[in-house]
């Protein structure tokens, strides 16, 4: 157990991957959580070539110790597969992954001591009560029974599960299961915490509780890797993030840096009384406007390097053209815009 003590109190571990590739030759298992693929697809038989699905296509990342890092991308982008590789659950086809100094594939036990994992879907032990789940998890990591009971109590309180602590988890709601999954991952106080889509299915209140707990855990010096397809979450929580799509990193940096890299910066979402190509042409001519794009219906997206001061000019142009300006929404440069810019698709698609 001395190695665990080392793990818990020694240097905080970071995460490193080098050119990770993962090619599935059959449907990825549920564990990989690659929501973009259908599962249960029939296996190839006979001489038919096996279908190859490239889940990771050369992911290289360096996540610093003590950082909250986010993988942002749509479903099926390769986020969960990356987490799977980093947590010993998915064998990489090529490339390397390290937690601290330990090669994830070659030193699995050492790595497992350092990490806590919250899977995309709750994978709680349905034969146990909430308290037992925490206690047995602690036991797997060699905690004494006194320590197990103490930590379980603290976590149950922190995650507001005390009143259901001694019930079987089978009857828990999705949100409760998710909270318990996170509590379990923290039970052995891991240096690196993986949260795969942690706020999916949580109500806004619980989501805020989760964010608070994640920040608090990070402040105690732990490294956190979080995946999400929710830009607000990435923006609110992460120091740095990587946007991934089709198994590749398409952008990497702090949320501010990434947002600043969007051409123009600000986005004005306008809605006019009617569609007028002539008006769009004129809008393009306004100072600071980088791009004007008609959207569905009467909407127009206007990318510009200034925001509020443009509104009056837009309104003037509209009234000169005899078109009513019905709605204006100004948004700061966002990660959604960045994703759109890189892929031509929305993150939500």
């Amino acid at each position, binding site marked *: *157990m001395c190695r*665990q003590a080392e793990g818990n109190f020694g240097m905080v571990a970071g995460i490193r991957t080098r050119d990770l590739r993962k090619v*599935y030759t059959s449907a*990825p*298992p*549920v*564990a*990989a959580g690659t929501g973009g693929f259908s599962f249960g697809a029939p296996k190839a038989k006979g001489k038919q070539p096996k279908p190859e699905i490239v889940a990771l296509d050369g992911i290289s990342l360096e996540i610093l110790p003590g950082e909250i890092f986010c993988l942002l991308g749509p479903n099926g982008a390769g986020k969960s597969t990356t987490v*799977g590789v980093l*947590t*010993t*659950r*998915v*064998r990489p086809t090529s490339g390397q992954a390290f937690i601290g100094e330990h090669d994830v594939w070659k030193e*699995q*036990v*050492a790595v*497992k*001591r350092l*990490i806590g*994992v919250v*899977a995309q*879907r709750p*994978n*709680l*032990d*349905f*034969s*146990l009560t909430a308290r*037992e*789940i925490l206690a*047995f*998890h602690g*036991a*797997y*990591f*060699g905690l004494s029974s006194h320590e197990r009971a103490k930590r379980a109590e603290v976590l149950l309180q922190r995650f507001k599960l005390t009143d259901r602590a001694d019930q079987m988890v089978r009857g828990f709601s999705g949100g409760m299961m998710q909270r318990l999954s996170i509590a*379990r991952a923290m039970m052995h106080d891991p240096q690196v915490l993986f949260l795969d889509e942690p706020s999916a299915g949580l109500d806004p209140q619980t989501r805020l509780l989760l964010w608070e707990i994640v920040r608090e855990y990070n402040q105690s010096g732990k490294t956190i890797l979080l995946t999400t397809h929710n830009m607000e979450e990435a923006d609110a929580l992460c120091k740095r993030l990587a946007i991934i799509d089709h198994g590749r990193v398409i952008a990497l940096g702090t949320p501010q840096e990434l947002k600043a890299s969007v051409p123009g910066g600000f986005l004005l979402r306008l809605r006019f009384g009617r569609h007028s190509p002539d008006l769009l042409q004129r809008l393009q001519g306004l100072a600071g406007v980088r791009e004007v794009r008609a959207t569905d219906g009467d909407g127009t997206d206007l990318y510009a390097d200034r925001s509020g001061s443009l509104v009056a000019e837009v309104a003037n142009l509209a009234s000169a053209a005899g078109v009513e300006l019905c709605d204006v929404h100004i948004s700061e440069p966002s990660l959604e815009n960045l994703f759109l810019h890189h892929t031509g698709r929305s993150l939500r698609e």
Partner: protein
Amino acid sequence: MNWKAFLAMLARDAHVARRNFVALLFQTFLQPLMFVFIFGRVMVGSGYMPASYKSLLLPGIMAICMVGTGIWAVAMPLIAEFQFTREIEDRLLAPMEISWLAIEKVVAGTLQALAAGFMVIPAAWLLLRPGVDLNVPHPILFAVVALLVALFSATGGLALGCSMQQTHIGLMFSLIVAPMIFFGCTYYPWSALDKFPMLQKAVLVNPLVYASEGLRATMIPQFPHLPLVAVVIGLVFFNALLLAVGLRNFHGKSVS
């Protein structure tokens, strides 16, 4: 090897088994004991079966109970835990090589099969008596055979549990477990197949034959049975084979 994690997982399985004890009891013993009652008591009492059948039946029933328990205890949770809920994930992430988790399952299954085996002897004896002629001249040999039988049930459970989908559980019992029991020399001794030489040779691929004949050889040696050496070789061979297949498939299911 992380013994703390290993023992904690054994403790977890013991805890779950204790919680389901009554259900397990009915599931394990009800059917075999009804068989004992009807064939060993009613049919012998009414003269359709010879009196010696009581003694021949008991080791076979013990083999059925042990094998049923071991397979059930290992295969069913594995099938469920590897499915949609991925309940096993938490234990796969414990700081221990994942093969040891499979071995822990085998140990837990072996212990449960041994418990079932030793519980069914007095129960069946009570139902059958008088006229059961149990005679265990070499208790150590008997213990070794019982252990090998229990191991066979648990390794069989591992191999089956890691090869089956949840949707195939019904098929597993009707296509694998049921034929294994009927052609496993459980309700009759292997020598009873003398008049069916082809069948007598064919059933030797069934590991349950060695289990029931081994228990016969050590519990009622006065009746004809397979040589003990053949029994031990057969059981050791099948245990090793099933463990190897089980471990390989366990790895296949654990890591993608």
